[in-house]
């Protein structure tokens, strides 16, 4: 690789390679040329003699160009010896100019002459060198090495094919020139003149060709046909030639291309460089676009067959892509980042300047919202007319109250079991499970006490609701917990009740403790919550062998207490019964000891209750009892009892105290879907268009047109059960309970007339009625006729009515 010579380069003649052993035919040719040169030198006008070595040296440098060698040698011999020697490298400062890395003595030919500088300058005076002995000192320009980077060492081996070929070519050209000269001069007769064609004007070249590739003789004919074909090609491609040639003029240093790779193949080619510049294809022209307009647009060889799409559809319409604009990817990325909310971080000036697009964006974002539009049709019913037309039975809620372990849950379980509201298999299952944990007597209570904690502890903790129906009335049981720790739950239950069933344990000792305990508290709470009718079920009569005396004693004590609490005697009724055995609950007792009681059973007593009227026309008020997930279709449901007003599907409702609005998607009354509901009914509302964080049990639902107001302080008329003074209390209202403070004791009122008995009391003693002001820590929805209970330190201290 490193050994080939590059004739095309302008400075390539200055390079020298060492080739010691040439090919035999090379040697032969050299010999031939040497003879020729020597002959010419002697025959020339100033006859010159030169040594054989000198001649070969010169031939070597002129690539066997005889004429040049002759000229050179003649000039050399004519000159003085000193002149010739002055160019020698030992004396010129050229060596210093050669950079250190340039290890190849690139410029000067290999010289066999020895000379010494001292001898050379011996006869010349100091600082007065005769003119003829002066020389132009050529500082050799800094030529790059003609090698590979870190290429092969320069002094190895023989002349490469490439170099040999180049030499041969050079010689051939020289001979051609010489031939012409001789032709012009007519001085010499050369055998090669016989050749007529321009291409074969030299037998030497032909011979040479043959000698270079002996086997090519057959191939040369083929090469001729090749050439002819090429001529055809070029004449066909002549149209673009003008441009090409003009271009070549511009290209000053366009390198002369030499055919080197296959000897004998490119031989016939002229040394004119082949223009390799193609014209743009159709595709390229679409890319280059108008940039090519100044160029001579020439149809490429492809265009003849390919139609130009741009021409067909009009060039003006299609423009080359403007790469200066943002790319499609950038547009997408920008849109993505703006969708992620990064827009504020990277505000684009275009958007900031254009408010119209911003508005578009906002509306676009709105339309992107995931929420599906709530489209619930409101039927615009007249609920009251519907209610009157409807064949509803009387509905009654009753709360079951009493001291802990009075048997409230068991009694209600018995009631439900005997009325077949619960099937026998369930009862049997409960019985087996209860016996397994050694609490066989609790089996019936488990009908209502569903949670595991309630069953394990054997007490009711939260209000349990259940429904049953008689021929005339549908009842809702609110089974209140009897334990003193869960009085707030009992208050919540009582607030939904129309009347109460007070269960009293008839067994010895338990009745007495109950009367001091939650029997009394519950009764008082019931009364103060507005319950007017109470059915007293004297339970566990079987434990006292249905003793009539015991019953009478209980009846007497209880009725006196209840009357004192404010119940009218006609609203109090007593039923002896046994929940665990079922005597006198649904069926009359078959115990012979109970034959003294001819009266009604518990269920019959319940049915005597008159229908209760509710204020249907008033604005809607509903205290949320529970918030739950009603299923996949109803992701948010609330349950509760409507205190006042009416409601229908599609109504918009307002939840206080949060103030959020919702839409009633559909509703259920007593477990059955219905389009409307009125006060007094227990409903389940399936809501839409609201976040569940706005809903808590105890919140009040109202209609937006007449909302309930949130208050932080209120004046109330209370009945004190304990000493009242300015103190921290818990305010209970249904499910709602909030901490607060009695801020002011306004007055003590007369129990009968309600007139002010004493203003600004320091303390309010139990059993008196007083007007007080209560402040709460946070606003709660409360309005005037609400009944509230004040509790402190785990006990009820007062109950009252908002003023």
């Amino acid at each position, binding site marked *: 690789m490193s050994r080939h010579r590059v004739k095309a380069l302008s400075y390539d003649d200055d390079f020298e390679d060492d080739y010691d052993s040439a090919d035999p035919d090379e040697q032969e040719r050299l010999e031939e040329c040497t003879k020729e040169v020597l002959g010419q030198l002697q025959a020339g006008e100033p006859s010159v003699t030169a040594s054989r070595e000198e001649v070969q040296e010169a031939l070597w440098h002129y690539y066997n160009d005889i004429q040049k060698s002759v000229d050179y040698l003649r000039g050399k011999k004519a000159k003085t010896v000193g002149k010739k020697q002055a160019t020698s490298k030992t004396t010129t400062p050229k060596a210093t100019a050669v950079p250190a890395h340039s290890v190849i003595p690139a410029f000067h030919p290999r010289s066999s002459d020895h000379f010494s500088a001292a001898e050379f300058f011996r006869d010349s005076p100091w600082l007065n060198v005769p003119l003829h002995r002066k020389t132009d000192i050529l500082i050799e320009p800094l030529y790059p*090495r003609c090698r590979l980077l870190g290429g092969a060492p320069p002094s190895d081996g023989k002349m490469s094919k490439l170099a040999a070929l180049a030499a041969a070519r050079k010689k051939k050209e020289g001979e051609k020139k010489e031939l012409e000269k001789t032709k012009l001069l007519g001085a010499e007769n050369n055998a090669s003149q016989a050749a007529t064609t321009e291409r074969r004007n030299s037998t030497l070249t032909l011979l040479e060709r043959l000698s270079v590739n002996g086997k090519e003789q057959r*191939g040369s004919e083929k090469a001729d046909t090749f050439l002819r074909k090429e001529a055809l090609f070029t004449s066909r491609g002549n149209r673009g030639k003008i441009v090409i040639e003009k271009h070549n003029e511009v290209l000053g240093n366009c390198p002369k291309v030499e055919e080197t790779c296959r000897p004998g193949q490119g031989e016939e080619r002229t040394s004119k460089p082949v223009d390799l*510049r193609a014209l743009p294809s159709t595709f*390229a022209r679409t890319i280059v676009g108008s940039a090519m307009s100044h160029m001579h647009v020439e149809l490429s060889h492809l265009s003849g067959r390919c139609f130009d799409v741009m021409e067909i559809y009009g060039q003006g319409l299609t423009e080359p892509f403007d790469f200066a604009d943002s790319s499609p990817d950038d547009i997408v990325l920008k849109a993505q980042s703006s969708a992620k909310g990064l827009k504020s971080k990277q505000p684009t000036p275009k958007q900031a300047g254009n408010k119209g697009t911003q508005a578009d964006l906002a509306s676009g974002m709105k339309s992107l919202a995931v929420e599906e539009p709530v489209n619930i049709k409101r039927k615009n019913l007249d609920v009251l007319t519907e209610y009157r037309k409807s064949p509803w039975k009387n509905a009654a809620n009753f709360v079951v109250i009493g001291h802990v372990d009075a048997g409230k849950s068991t009694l209600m379980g018995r009631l439900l079991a005997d009325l077949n509201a619960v099937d026998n298999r369930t009862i049997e299952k409960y019985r087996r499970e209860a016996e397994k944990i050694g609490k066989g007597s609790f089996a019936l209570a488990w009908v209502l006490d569903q949670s595991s904690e309630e069953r394990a502890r054997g007490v009711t903790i939260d209000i349990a609701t259940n429904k049953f129906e008689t021929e005339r009335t549908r009842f809702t049981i609110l089974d209140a917990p009897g334990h003193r720790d869960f009085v707030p739950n009992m208050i919540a239950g009582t607030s939904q009740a129309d009347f109460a069933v007070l269960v009293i344990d008839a067994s010895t000792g338990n009745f007495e403790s109950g009367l001091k305990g939650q029997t009394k508290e519950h009764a008082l709470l019931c009364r103060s919550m507005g319950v007017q009718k109470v059915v007293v079920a004297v339970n566990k009569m079987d434990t006292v062998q249905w003793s009539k005396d015991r019953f009478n004693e209980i009846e007497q004590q209880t009725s006196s207490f209840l009357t004192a609490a404010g119940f009218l005697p006609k609203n109090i009724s007593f039923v002896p019964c046994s929940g665990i055995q079922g005597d006198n609950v649904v069926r009359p007792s078959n115990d012979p000891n109970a034959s003294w009681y001819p009266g009604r059973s518990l269920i019959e007593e319940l049915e005597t209750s008159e229908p209760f009227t509710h204020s249907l026309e008033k604005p809607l008020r509903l205290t949320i009892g529970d918030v739950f997930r009603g299923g996949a279709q109803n992701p948010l449901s609330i349950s509760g009892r409507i205190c006042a007003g009416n409601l229908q599907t599609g109504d918009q409702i307002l939840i206080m105290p949060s103030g959020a609005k919702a839409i009633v998607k559909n509703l259920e009354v007593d477990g059955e879907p219905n389009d409307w509901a009125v006060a007094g009914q227990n409903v389940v509302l399936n809501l839409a268009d609201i976040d569940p964080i706005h809903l808590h049990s105890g919140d009040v639902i109202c209609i937006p047109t007449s909302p309930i107001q949130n208050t932080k302080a209120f004046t109330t008329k209370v009945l004190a059960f304990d000493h009242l003074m300015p103190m921290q209390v818990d305010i209970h209202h249904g499910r709602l309970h909030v901490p607060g403070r009695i801020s002011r004791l306004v007055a003590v009122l007369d129990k009968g007339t309600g007139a002010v008995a004493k203003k600004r009391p320091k303390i309010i003693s139990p059993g008196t009625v007083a007007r007080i002001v209560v402040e709460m820590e946070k606003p709660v929805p409360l309005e005037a006729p609400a009944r509230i209970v004040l509790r402190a330190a785990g006990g009820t201290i007062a109950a009252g009515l908002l003023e």
Partner: protein
Amino acid sequence: MTDRRRINGPPCGTRPPVFAPATGKAAESPKRTRRSNELRKIFLKTGLIPSAAGSAYLEIEPARPLLTKPLIARSSALKLTCTVHGPKPLPRSTPFSPNLLITTHVKYAPFAARRRRGYIRDASERDLGVHLETAIRGAIIAERWPKSALEVTVNVLEAEDDRWWGNVSGSYDASWGMMNVLAGCITATSAAIADARIDCLDLVVGGVAALVREEASQKTEGHAVNGSPILVLDPDPSEHRSIVSTCVIAYMPGRDEITELWLKGDALEVALSEDDKRSGHEALIDGAVDTARRLHSVLTAAVVESGERLFSAMTDGTWTKDDNGNVEMKI
């Protein structure tokens, strides 16, 4: 990492199927009609992409015009664009560099060859990038831009196939098409770098040569001994049934230096024709250098055109001098 921004096409080829004619005549594979030392013409143009500092478009059309059945015997072509961004300052996080840092990306368009490419660069594309970087690194005078970076991106729009699609894959198969692509990349990048007015020692030209073994060599190349491979310049892989070896070089003609040399295939044991005593490697490299030297004229012409464009822009006043104020043009 998958590309989620686009709907990717199928991974297989996209050209329509060509069914063999009913007459039973098999599809005719393309044959090299050029002589072994004849090069295909090249279209090279600079300054296509105004947002880039320098850019070039290179195109090699098949030497043969399309025949009557264009779908069947189509030689592959090469089309690629090259963009050069820079020299630009390095980001702050990068450690100090006294030289210009060069990064090269070579990416095939998914539709570039018969085998469909993904949008993410695969191993061969990264390989080409490394080769390209080596090729241009030797030419750029990198110490003139400390703390700067140069980004070279080559987009191959149409690549030469590794073989004619009608041939079944044989033992001689290698990714021969890559070699031609690399040569094109080198030439185009050199033009783009010159278009970006980045100081170079010389214009680097890519050249390819191959040793091919032709079955029908007696007919077309009368001189070649049957069985011994012949040297062809600028080979089109689809035109040769069996390629023994291919060589790509990046060559600086002005200095006679090679900055990148890539040989593929086994050329060591290969004996050329009787009169040619060179080893296979030598012949390949000589051929590639020769190719490169001839293509140099095309490259020079493109650079001259780039310079003329700059000059006209300067005279129009649309182009201002850069910060250093040197608008030296020496062609």
